[in-house]
Every structure is written in structure tokens, then in C-alpha cells.
């Protein structure tokens, strides 16, 4: 379980999150809100990329402030722009990067890379230069590179924003197959209809939190 308790956070003078209290137990949680509402900051708190100015975030009892490395191993994070998260020049090498960080033996790394490439239909791209992939392929690589590390939770920060319709569908279908609990930050409300819970951010606060239909209705009314 991810627990967010009394969390507030500032960037300089601007308070981006104010008194957030919630816990994430569901398998599919959506996070929506206007630009600058604090949803991406919230997502970054969940795997310890950001440490809150006040309050605490714990993942399975591990505090991000004290056990940031252990938390990052538990919570995989997919960024909006895959170009900025693919570290190695070749597809196969990038997937292996996270596994090397886990200090796994070479043979184990090779086996896991093979499995994840096959699972996400990337085997034919294994030796391809990452910068030559399409947007959808890049995002698929970014997701695979996170999932190969077998995190307990997966947080995705607007992973479909830069993609065309076909690639959006590809990534959405992939997200649907993820076995772990997922927190998806998105602007595409349609993608959240079958989620268990949707959290709405506005001005750094949670203004709605509940089943998708109610939360999305609240959000669309506020945006009207």
C-alpha cells in the first residue's frame, strides 16, 4: 500500500501540493487535473523522486525520505517523454540497464531481457538504435524497461500525451496487461472508465476522489 500523509510541497514560492492525505490500495488508480494542478508532482512523490517538504509518503511501510532507494525499486516510474528516459543507445541495452542496477548476474539479465522483449513485441527491435524508433515504440521500450525490473507498483506520468491515436491505443493496451497496481496520470478521461478509482487535483489539492464516473463528472464540470 502507498500512503500519503499530510503532504505539502513547494517549488520556490509556489505551493504545488497542499495537505494531501490518501492511500492507494486499488489495482487501477487514475490521476487527472488541469495543467499545473500538482498531479505530476504527486506522481513523483510516490517513488521518492521528490521528497515532500512536509508530511510523509510510505510504500509498504518504507518512508521515501529514509528509504528512497528501496522505494524506487518497488515503484516503477514511466515518464511522459520516452526520449528523456531511454538511457542506452540500443533497445536491448536500455532494458538491461535497470537489471544491472539490481546487480543481477549476466545470465539472469539476458534471460529477463529476452522475456520482456518477447512479451511486449520488441524482439525484432532488440538491436535497433533507440533514437530511430517511432514514438510508440519508444514509449513501449520505456515501459518494458521499467517492468523488467518487476516493481510492485507502476506509476505512469502522462505516457500517451505525445503519441498519435494508434500508438496511444498500443500503450493503453499494454498498460491494461500490467499485473501490478497502476497509478496513471493522464488527460485522456476515456482511458479511465474501467479504473477502480480516479483522483482529481486542482490547485495542489485533491478536489474529488472516487469511482471514475463521479470523479470525471466533477472534473469536467470544473473545467467547463
Amino acid at each position: 500500500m502507498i500512503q500519503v500523509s499530510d503532504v505539502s510541497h513547494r517549488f520556490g514560492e509556489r505551493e504545488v501540493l497542499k495537505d494531501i492525505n490518501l492511500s492507494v490500495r486499488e489495482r487501477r488508480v487514475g490521476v487527472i487535473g488541469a495543467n499545473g494542478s500538482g498531479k505530476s508532482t504527486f506522481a513523483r512523490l510516490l517513488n521518492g523522486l521528490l521528497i515532500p517538504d512536509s508530511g510523509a509518503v510510505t510504500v509498504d511501510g518504507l518512508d521515501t525520505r529514509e528509504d528512497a532507494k528501496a522505494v524506487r525499486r518497488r515503484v516503477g516510474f514511466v515518464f511522459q517523454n520516452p526520449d528523456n528516459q531511454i538511457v542506452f543507445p540500443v533497445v536491448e541495452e536500455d532494458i538491461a540497464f535497470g537489471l544491472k542496477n539490481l546487480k543481477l548476474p549476466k545470465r539472469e539479465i539476458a534471460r529477463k531481457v529476452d522475456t520482456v522483449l518477447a512479451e511486449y513485441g520488441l524482439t525484432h527491435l532488440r538491436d535497433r538504435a533507440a533514437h530511430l524508433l517511432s514514438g510508440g515504440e519508444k514509449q513501449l521500450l520505456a515501459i518494458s524497461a521499467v517492468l523488467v525490473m518487476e516493481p510492485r507498483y507502476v506509476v505512469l506520468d502522462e505516457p500517451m500525451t505525445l503519441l498519435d491515436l494508434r500508438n496511444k491505443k498500443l500503450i493503453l493496451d499494454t498498460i491494461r496487461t500490467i499485473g501490478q497496481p497502476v497509478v496513471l496520470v493522464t488527460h485522456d478521461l476515456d482511458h479511465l472508465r474501467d479504473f477502480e478509482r480516479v483522483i482529481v487535483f486542482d490547485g495542489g489539492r485533491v478536489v474529488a476522489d472516487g469511482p471514475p464516473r463521479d470523479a470525471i463528472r466533477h472534473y469536467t464540470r470544473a473545467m467547463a
Partner: protein
Amino acid sequence: MLSLYVPGDSFVHRAPAAAKLAILVICGAALFVVSGIPVHAAELALLAGLFHAARLPWRDTFRQLRTALIFLVPIFLFHVFVTDWTLGLETVLRILVLLLLAVLVTLTTRTTDMIDVLEAAVRPLRHVGVNPSKTGMMLSMVIRFIPMMMREAQEVLEAQRARGLDRNAIALLMPLLIKTLKMADDLSEAIEARGYDPEPVVPVWRRKG
């Protein structure tokens, strides 16, 4: 020569990366000791055999050499007019052998294997504070991000041209610098998120006990 590994199963591909890089360094140095057109021609023939054995597409090889070849022509012409053409030919052949050898190593060796060799090579320098893991990561990122930077520069140029601005170095550099800093920021987050945790390196003069 950015991440252009061409997969294959030839003996050139299978040769250890350390051996290939060592041969590249040794031959690179030796090339400036040995001389004579027939010697360099024989080296070229040997390299052609290795390219054939590695089944490397000529198109990929040529693409790697294209820019360098442009410089070989003026070098040759300079010698024709200033010294003599045989010296020009020998110089051009020498450079060509070196370039082809580098291309052969690049096209048949995975980046990670090269980086592993580099990390092993700089490991002794950890006593003076050089972190092998960070050095390898740095090289990997240079290879990864040069094509991205080129694309970003192209985008900035196109945006400026669309708004009626001709080529202007400052107008290009400023937005490119800002984009690069943002990219570096995002990338450091991504690396952190994927558990990158290099072993700390302490130089001998800072070690206690």
C-alpha cells in the same frame, strides 16, 4: 559512429570487445610507424576481407565514412601540389585504414561491451578519484544523446526559419542550451528512477586508515 552495431554471428562479431579495441589502439599507433604504399594497400585488402567475413552492408560502412572521405580529397590534393602524389596517396591510405578499422570495430561491437571495456580500463584510476561506472555511463549518454541534440537543433532552426529568422548562432544556442538543461534534468530523474546507484569512489588521499 553512434550506436550503429550491426548484429551478426561472424568471428569478428564474436571476438571479445577488449581484443578488438586493443587491436584498434595498437594498429592505430603502428600505422604511423610502418610506411609504404604496398603495406597500406595490403592492410586495406586484409580489412576488406574482414568486412566481407563480418557480412557488413557496404551501405552502412560507406555512411560511416562519408564525411571523412570528403576530407581525404583535399589532403591528397594538398600533397599533389605541395609535396608529391605518392606521399599524398600514402597519407590517404593510412587514414583510410585507420577509419575502416574503427568502423569495423564499431559495427561489430555492442555499445555495452565497449563501455564494459572502458570501465575495466579506467578501473585503476579509481585510486585517483575516477569513477569507472560514472565514466561508462557518461560515454553511453554521449552516444545516446548526440542524435537527440542534433534533432533538437534541427527543430529550433526550423522554428526560427518559420518565423523569418536566418541562421544565427546565438539564436540557436540559447534555446538549445535551455532544452539541453531540461533534458539533462529529466534524464537524471529517469536514471534515479531506474535505481542507478554507482559505487562511491574515494581517492587515496581522502581514505581514512
